């Protein structure tokens, strides 16, 4: 338990550092928020009054502390662009992005784990050879290009969905629409995961304990499922956690291709319009999601591999 507590502490510290970095970066970015809000014709006195009201003249660290405190209470400030509370704005757009990322992640798990295990089990077989080539090609295709291809093929030619018409309503409405963007983002990661799983299974299969189990009469697939797979879990879990960061990055772009009203598009528009509070909040939120996933993966890895928790960190 002590270990988890220490890990939580480092996570919180990283979160503070990350949010501070973001806060500083965006404060440089947005220039003078007052002129943005009141337009260039506004008189200097009005601008100064607004700056004082919004507390823009306070030193950076004070503003950061005030923002952090507000954030802890769910108040992320007000958007310059939409003059709505940031948290409300994010709340509306959280659904599509979360669903999109979750759908991609599920696709990765469902497709790459069986394929990875099969291509390792029948290494050198026809499946393995085709997958090796396919992996290389799929990894070379940028997700947004896949998105355009899907839009053309399944949207314009086969009319399976109307490109650009995002269904209104809750996740149940737009889940179907999100299938193709999710697949576009997931494809390269599926290829990477299959490749990783295949290599780590084949590496583990060389290890001495496989030979020991064979000497006890265990069949090859018995050894694969009882011994080898578990030993490949740790590298797999760590890799999947890193993939979450890629998925979030991918969704920012793919939302543009499929006109999905998610956090990604909001982020792009808020950066373009120098809407600091919104942009800053989204970046911090996405970064926190990634940090959380890494922590989860880390704890899961420790549960799987007891060697990782021993004090001396005696990983073999």
């Amino acid at each position, binding site marked *: 338990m002590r270990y988890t507590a220490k890990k939580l502490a480092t996570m919180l510290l990283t979160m503070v550092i990350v949010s501070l970095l973001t806060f500083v970066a965006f404060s440089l970015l947005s220039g003078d928020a007052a002129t943005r809000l009141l337009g260039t014709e506004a008189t200097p006195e009005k601008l100064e009054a607004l700056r004082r009201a919004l507390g823009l003249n306070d030193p950076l660290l004070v503003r950061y502390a005030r923002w952090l405190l507000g954030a802890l209470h769910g108040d992320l400030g007000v958007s310059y662009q939409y003059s709505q509370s940031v948290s409300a704005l994010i709340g509306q757009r959280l659904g599509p992005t979360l669903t999109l990322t979750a759908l991609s992640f599920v696709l990765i798990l469902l497709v790459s784990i069986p394929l990875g295990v099969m291509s390792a089990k029948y290494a050198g077989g026809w499946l393995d050879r085709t997958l090796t080539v396919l992996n290389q090609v799929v990894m070379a295709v940028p997700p947004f290009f896949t998105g355009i291809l899907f839009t053309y093929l399944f949207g314009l030619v086969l009319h399976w969905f109307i490109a650009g018409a995002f269904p209104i309503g809750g996740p149940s409405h737009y889940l179907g629409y999100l299938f193709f963007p999710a697949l576009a983002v997931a494809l390269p990661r599926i290829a990477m995961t299959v490749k990783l799983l295949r290599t780590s299974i084949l590496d583990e299969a060389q*290890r*001495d*304990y496989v*030979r*020991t*189990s*064979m*000497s*006890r*009469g*265990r*069949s090859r697939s*018995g050894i694969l499922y009882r*011994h080898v797979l*578990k*030993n490949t879990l740790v590298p797999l879990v760590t890799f999947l956690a890193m993939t979450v960061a890629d998925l979030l990055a991918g969704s920012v772009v793919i939302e543009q291709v499929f006109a999905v009203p998610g956090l990604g598009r909001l982020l792009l528009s808020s950066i373009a319009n120098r809407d600091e509070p919104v942009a800053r909040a989204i970046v911090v939120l996405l970064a926190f999601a990634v940090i959380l996933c890494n922590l989860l993966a880390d704890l899961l890895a420790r549960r*799987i*591999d*007891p*060697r990782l928790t*021993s004090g001396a960190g*005696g990983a*073999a």
Partner: protein
Amino acid sequence: MVEIRDLHVRFHDASREAVAGIDLTIHDGEIVGLVGESGSGKTVTAMTLSGLIERKKVSLSGEVLVGGRDILRLPRTELRTIQGREIGVVFQEPMSAMDPLMRIGAQVEEALAVHTQLTKEQRRARALEVLRDVDLPAPEEIYRKYPHECSGGQLQRVMIAAAIVTDPHLLLLDEPTTALDVTVQAQILALLRRLNQERGISMLLISHNLQVVRRICSRVAVMQRGKIVEKGEMERVFTAPQHPYTAKLINAIPHRAQR
């Protein structure tokens, strides 16, 4: 009784035969030593005897009779009924020969899980019993531990326990003490001798170290470049070697006599 008759083993990518026609018999209850330097073919012989050699990569001829059945020609499924039930194997590096993510108890019980219909509790009881037989203090504790939580000596005892848990006819030991400290080596060899006397398990001890073989084997075979160059009673071979290579092996051991 285990009998090897004119065994030839050649790896497809190799120029010469790894095993070039050997004959060896291990009578019930006997401990036979197989000595030779690296590349002599002693490990290939062990791998063939325990059915762990990859049949795709080698061409085999001759016979290896275990309980009257020639394991070279048995289909894979039938071979598996022998592995772990009639032949137990102990390898050189105990730490790497164990699954790092599986508790020791489960690994000791594996042969039982494969070959018997015993319930979980019966398997556990049997495992604890055999852990006690190999002089491990507090078997219940060791049962729950993971391999990295034990010393090399303890793990080698666990490996021996896991190999004899199904009362096999033959225990095959491939350099069992090489990775251990001198004092621990002596204890493991004493344990093997006791298990042989108490349970009558016949053993094939493979080693590059003639002194280790000399401590517990009744008969010994010396291998050089795939052939058995000398075979016989342990003391006779050690004191009056007939083949020059055996003599060379013996006087290569830094004896107290010469300085």
